[in-house]
């Protein structure tokens, strides 16, 4: 039954590096190591590259979001959420398990500093009516259900605001509807007060589809960087955006 303990406590696995150099190891059995890697953040975040792209610009796969030029505070929160299991995605949970906050700040800063062109917006298959509904929700919200307009927090340009509120441009409809549904189901959390959980719970299934579809079809504005902190106040109190 030690096994259980070992699942966690295991003195585990060593990668031993022996002399890479062509010729046989030197007499004392010691070997010289290869040249050290570039001392850059770029070299350090290659662990993220296969899913988010080498610079966080996203990949062919629309399941993984673009993280380049998202607000640093937002990215830091997500890194933390994944490490703490407040968001569940094993590869992320696993990669971040033994990294600390100070390093997270560096990683978040690195990606938020990337300025890269956005991919072509989605060509949505949903009907014009649905798109129209989506646009209305984004710009005006739904007073009947006390749903604030997305633009209220994420900005008229939908490019988000520093430090904590992400832009909604350049995301895929599937990703957006997934996040809203997660908030509804309670599988995604943000620092309390969790304003997005509030909002997501007020949306209907159809509204989620509409919003996601419309947002995904929006081209990025010329300047797609988050607005400066404090540019506007959010209609709902949000833990991730201290006022």
């Amino acid at each position, binding site marked *: 039954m030690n096994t259980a303990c070992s699942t966690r406590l295991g003195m585990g696995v060593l990668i031993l590096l022996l002399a890479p150099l062509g010729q046989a190891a030197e007499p004392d059995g010691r070997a010289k190591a290869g040249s050290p890697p570039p001392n850059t953040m770029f070299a350090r975040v290659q662990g993220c590259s296969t899913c988010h792209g080498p610079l966080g610009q996203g990949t062919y796969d629309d399941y993984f979001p673009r993280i380049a030029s998202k607000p640093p505070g937002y990215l830091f929160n997500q890194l933390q959420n994944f490490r703490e299991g407040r968001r569940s995605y094993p590869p992320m949970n696993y990669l971040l398990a033994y990294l600390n906050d100070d390093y997270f700040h560096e990683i978040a800063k690195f990606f938020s500093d990337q300025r890269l062109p956005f991919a072509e917006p989605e060509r949505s298959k949903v009907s014009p009516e649905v798109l129209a509904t989506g646009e209305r929700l984004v710009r005006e919200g739904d007073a009947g259900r006390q749903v604030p307009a997305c633009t209220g927090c994420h900005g008229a340009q939908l490019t988000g605001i520093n430090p904590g509120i992400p832009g909604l441009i350049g995301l895929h409809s599937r990703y957006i509807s*997934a996040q809203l549904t*997660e908030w509804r189901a309670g599988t995604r959390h943000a620092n309390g007060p969790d304003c997005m959980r509030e909002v997501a719970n007020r949306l209907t299934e159809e509204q989620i*589809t509409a919003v996601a579809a419309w947002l995904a079809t929006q081209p990025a504005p010329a300047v797609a960087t988050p607005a400066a902190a404090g540019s506007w106040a959010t209609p709902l109190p949000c833990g991730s955006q201290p006022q």
Partner: protein
Amino acid sequence: MNKLGLWAILAVAAMVLVGGVIGFVWLPRVVYSDQGFFAAWCSALGVPRSWAAYGASPVARISSDVVLTHELLEPSTPADVGHGATLALRCTMCHGPTGISFADSPNLAGQYAVVIYKQLRDYKSGMRTNAVMSAMARSLSDTDMRQVAAYYASLPRPAAFRLTGAAPAVVKYGAPMRNIAPCGSCHGAIDHTLASPWLKGEPRAYIRAELTAFASEERHNDIDAQMRAIAHGMTPDEIDQAAAYFAGEH
């Protein structure tokens, strides 16, 4: 051939004749008087004619195009589970790293493969709709669906969800006069019938939501409208009792 035998044969032949005349000539002419003789005769024989003859097709809109076949019941291979595990990484955001969401999205750990497969098929075909799942399922091939299902079926059901306490009446007995079968006799509290989902340990909110959706016909991918009929007959209380019971929260 002796006399008696001959008489017997003739008598029986006569009966056949009489019966035939009544059955295929006389009655049809009365019953299907509107049709020609031949048509009437066909009806008496039971030869089906095109539904056109009756106007609109009596076949209701099909609720799902998934058919439970032996192939679906075949045990899955380790390879299926392996590939399923990788495909299922994308489900973990809502359904949890090991198929347990600890929230309101359905737990999939230990769910029957046929059940998961059918729902994925229905999401893909649009028979069941959901903002996320419809999009998710669209990108899955038939093999993908089987593998994901195989993976989740292979995961252990959470020990934490051992049901305690007595089941409410609707779970234990249903309500015969309202044609409500006992939930438990198909969904696991008492017994399990093939291809019906295992509900023990599913989130209360989820079960409640689905039953309500069935009742309002908003969800309609249940074959022969079984669940719609049942949910329709259930009172909101019963729905909540059942949900609470299966979630282990009573």
